[in-house]
């Protein structure tokens, strides 16, 4: 009797597990499809299930790889002791300095700082107000750190970042000089040389 119960229990377990796997991957496949009427009909429960533990996106350079190089430029209001006034420094490209070591040594820790630059530039340009706010906050954090290094030992009042988006020319114009590429810019305006309020609040 006990043997029989064990046998049926094992059969149930096997079907429960493999059935569960089948259902999970059926849902994962549906979640990964482009928008379609079936996905639209079950969107709420599907996303509720998938985005709890299994959120994923495998577009990986699809449908198209990005065709813009984003970079950051920084300026700051720095105290000039000789003239007894705040002066605005020239724009400095902070992304180029981060990229150069990566181009020489392929496995480089700078890659993660660069990821932060690019993510901040991307979010800052977003149509979503929340993303733009996060992007601005990240740019401020990056700017404070970089300004501290660039204008070491000097009094800094405010920082300002310009995200630059350069469009890669089409393949047939691949020899075009980078100075002739189409450039778009977005400016943060002056930001305090101190962490933002929400960041401090998060720390409490």
């Amino acid at each position: 009797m006990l043997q029989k119960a064990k046998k049926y229990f094992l059969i149930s377990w096997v079907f429960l597990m493999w059935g569960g796997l089948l259902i999970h991957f059926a849902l994962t496949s549906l979640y990964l499809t482009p928008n379609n009427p079936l996905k639209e009909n079950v969107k709420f429960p599907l996303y509720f299930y998938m985005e709890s533990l299994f959120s994923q996106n495998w577009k990986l350079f699809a449908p198209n790889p990005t065709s813009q190089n984003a970079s950051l430029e920084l300026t700051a209001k720095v105290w000039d002791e000789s003239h007894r006034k705040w002066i605005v420094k020239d724009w400095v490209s902070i992304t180029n300095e981060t990229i150069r070591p990566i181009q020489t040594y392929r496995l480089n820790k700078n890659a993660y700082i660069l990821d932060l630059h690019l993510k901040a530039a991307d979010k800052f340009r977003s149509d979503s107000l929340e993303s733009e706010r996060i992007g601005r906050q990240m740019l401020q954090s990056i700017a404070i750190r970089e300004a501290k290094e660039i204008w070491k030992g000097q009094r800094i009042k405010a920082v300002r970042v310009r995200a630059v988006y350069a469009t890669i020319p089409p393949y047939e114009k691949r020899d075009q000089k980078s100075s002739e590429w189409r450039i778009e810019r977005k400016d943060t305006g002056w930001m305090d040389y101190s962490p933002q309020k929400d960041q401090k609040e998060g720390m409490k």
Partner: protein
Amino acid sequence: MIQRFIEWSSKERLLIGASLIRVQFALILLTFFILNYGQRDLLWGPDGIWSYGNFLSSHNNGILNLFHFSASNLFFEILFHLFIVILVLYLLGIRTRLTGLLVFIFFWSFYYRNPAIMNGGMNLLRLELLYLMFANTGAYLALTPEKPVRDIMKKSLLEKMIAVLHNVAVMAVALQIILVYFTAGIYKVMGSYWQDGTAVYYALRLHEFYWPGVNDWIWNQTWLVVLASYGTILIQVMFPAFIVHPKLKYFALAGVVSMHIGIAFTMSLFFFSWIMIASEMILLNDEDYRKIKQWLRKLKELAIYFRDHKLVFRYEEEK
């Protein structure tokens, strides 16, 4: 039929692949965290670029992680160093059921503490670590091996249930990697750059991936750009069909491994490539690994044979 399926399911499979994945994932994470050791505070610390406020305000999938317990720097430092210790234990194969669970919890926490630096590879790693918590990843290459009971008749009900869970977990890892390729391939088919065969040019031209001297040479070879663009789609879309074929799977694996080695160097995406190649280790069964071991042994014998003959030859010369 049902009985055969139950028996098939009750014996742990793909044990060598599961152990190899464990070792690779542990090495990947150790390298990643040690590489970023000097800038850990910047990436995950309370004063990091992805602020603690941002972390708290993002929904984090509605699930708590270790960073929710404290915003203090000391707590962060403890978590960081503890994670490295856990990864070493996982790598060495010590109590892999427990360390596997801890690796998932810690990695989940670091992943959501700063999602801005996590790419597709890390996303896959997060999912696979979740599945691998239910698998026996410590049968091989482990200091305290989780030895499977080979004789199915001697197994208790609980052991059989654990074996079923293991098989489902390793199958989940395999299906996940197949889905990654298929989805990536299908979405690429829809892209105009992939259709006109120039997508690889744009990817190589991004300054974060640029390798001076090498990438320029590649994108100036029109045939190579077109071949690499179309070849990538072909490999990715065909991968699920090829991988289930007993012979074609070797070609499919050779294709994707070559693709990832190329990506690692030309686009500097080492961790992404390493994670993808490591994940593919589950796609070969224990029999395949034994065959590989035999080939390697034969190769070694051949090398020894040539070495010895060279020695004899020299000896004769000296005489």
